[in-house]
């Protein structure tokens, strides 16, 4: 039995985002940067830690954004790549005594390879099937990490404790503060890399595949290569974020990287606006702070409040933070005219 499905009438996987709408203007970017540099100087250590996590999850959401907003592929399995990155960093630091900063590129490369390889079978899948395969990957990951076979390195169910690095060169700042600025530098570097990647030949290839795979291949784009490449890059960045996360939290354990994390990252992307890179930080703020707020509204119902908020976002602002930003920009423009 065969059935014919019209490609033209089928719902798109993600909405096409024009390339120019994917980033912020120069002035706004500088203002954001200044804010990120100054704020930690005035707040308590715990808030600095939260800000560090904000940047780290921001990176992970950004990675997913490149995959979904850029190349139009889905993943509900980012927690698996995050876990691999975290474990790579932790194992290298604790068992091989490698400097924490050096473990990050290694985590990135290992995750890139892992993502690239996982992208091979995922290539054949699209839309819901890809969501399903990555969903299964994320659910299976904690069990894989608990395996007795890897236990000498991973510490099994117990996990590994990671030592927090001190500020180098005798700088007179605390560990949390140092880690924040270190994370900020890594984040900015990766953000610039991502923006440039999407503006490059490869980025255009990603977007062509996102908008119409058949047309893209007709234009001579190697669809298979670029789809796996997008998976690899996304996994690599997530791996770096995972490594940073391990250093910041000082602990890795299989149950920190469950499907819940993958879903959070996915939601972060939806909230931030699919395909809008600066939205990643907004999405990351949503997944870090909103569960707390939800807990505050009702202790037992935090999941429900979270879900309801998500539905509100889908219905009222389907493009997430990007839409809010556009509307406010429009309003400010109007006010200036008056």
């Amino acid at each position, binding site marked *: *039995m*065969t*059935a*014919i*499905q*019209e*490609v*033209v*009438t089928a*719902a*798109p*996987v*993600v*909405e096409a985002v024009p390339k120019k709408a994917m980033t912020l203007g120069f002035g706004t970017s500088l203002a954001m940067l200044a804010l990120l540099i100054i704020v930690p100087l005035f707040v308590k250590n715990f808030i600095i830690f939260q800000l560090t996590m904000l940047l780290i999850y921001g990176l992970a959401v950004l990675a997913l954004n490149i995959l*979904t907003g850029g190349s139009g592929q*889905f993943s*509900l399995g980012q927690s698996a790549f995050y876990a691999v990155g975290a474990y790579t960093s932790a194992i290298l630091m604790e068992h091989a005594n490698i400097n924490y900063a050096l473990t990050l590129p290694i985590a990135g490369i290992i995750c890139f390879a892992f993502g690239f390889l996982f992208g091979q*079978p995922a290539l*054949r*899948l699209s*839309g*819901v*099937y890809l*969501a*399903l*395969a990555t*969903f*299964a*990957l994320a*659910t*299976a990951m904690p*069990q*894989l990490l*608990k*395996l*007795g*076979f890897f236990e000498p390195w991973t510490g099994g169910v117990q996990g590994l404790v990671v030592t927090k690095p001190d500020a180098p060169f005798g700088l007179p700042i605390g560990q949390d503060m140092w880690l924040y600025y270190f994370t900020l530098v890594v984040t900015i570097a990766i953000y610039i890399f991502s923006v440039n990647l999407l503006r490059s030949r490869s980025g255009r290839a990603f977007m062509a595949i996102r908008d119409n795979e*058949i047309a893209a291949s007709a234009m001579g784009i190697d669809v298979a290569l670029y789809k796996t490449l997008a998976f690899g890059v996304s996994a690599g960045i997530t791996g770096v974020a995972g490594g940073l996360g391990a250093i910041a939290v000082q602990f890795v354990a299989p149950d920190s990287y469950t499907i819940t994390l993958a*879903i959070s990252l*996915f*939601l972060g992307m*939806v909230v931030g606006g*699919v395909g809008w890179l600066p939205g990643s930080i907004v999405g990351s703020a949503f997944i870090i702070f909103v569960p707390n707020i939800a807990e505050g509204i009702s202790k*037992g*119902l*935090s*999941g*429900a409040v*979270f*879900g*309801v908020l*998500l*539905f509100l976002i*889908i*219905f009222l602002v*389907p493009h997430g933070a990007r839409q809010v930003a556009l509307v406010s920009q429009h309003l400010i423009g109007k006010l200036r005219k008056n």
Partner: protein
Amino acid sequence: MELLINQVLAGIATGAIYACMALAVVMIYQAIDQLNFAQGEMAMFSTFISWQLMQWGFPYWWAFLITLAFSFAAGIAIERLLFKPLAKAPILTNVAGFIALFAIINSVAGLIWDFTIKQYPTPFGSRPFLGSQLISTHQAGMIGVTVLLLIGLYFFFQFTRIGLAMRAAASLPESARLVGINTSWMIALGWGMAAAIGSIAGMMIAPVVFLEPNMMGGVLIYGFAAAVLGGLTSPLGAVVGGFLVGIFENLVGTYIPGVGNELKLPIALALIITVLVVKPAGLFGRHIVKRV
């Protein structure tokens, strides 16, 4: 040899759980071309409803019927209220919606009935079935219910007007609308039926895995694996897939050393990916050809 036969039997018994779940997954997929990630939670909630009814003193089969009706209505309500407005939205938005639904149902169930594990009664008893140690009367009953459900669905889709209309709406919505079928309501009906089938699955599974808000986690993944193996477009495939996955799981656990309960989910993952790569349409699924 006896070990093999025994393990296959036990596999069929666990497979019945996955078959039920897969059937619900396929029903939704038929209607809207989406995998409902909240399917397991909907089934769990229905099961809690039936448990509550029994706590209030309803006999088992009355509770069963009321729950069935409730789930059917709730499925339709969810579609009308939440997912109908998203029909034209990108797939991504729909997936986000399913996840939100998942979070809401899970948390509400936890709030109403809390997270302690509850015993759930079985109407079939739990004595050994025909003297076999591996399969109980409950498991035999579960297999029976699954097969009955499948036969019922077959007759519904093949021999009733509304079944035909649903099939038409699923395969070519535009042409179906032209001959006067209300495709929008067919989708709602699909949701209702999927929710009802899911509730049957939940009530059959609950005596085995015990009742609690997170009972469906692992089962749903295996249900997906079964649905994919059988072909997402075929109810028969889902049931056969369910039994095969159950048998496969048991045999792997028995014959490959080092694979026990701790590798349960990675096996499901490997299975899903293998099937999607080797035979994406599954064993009984329709092959979809795309026209540009």
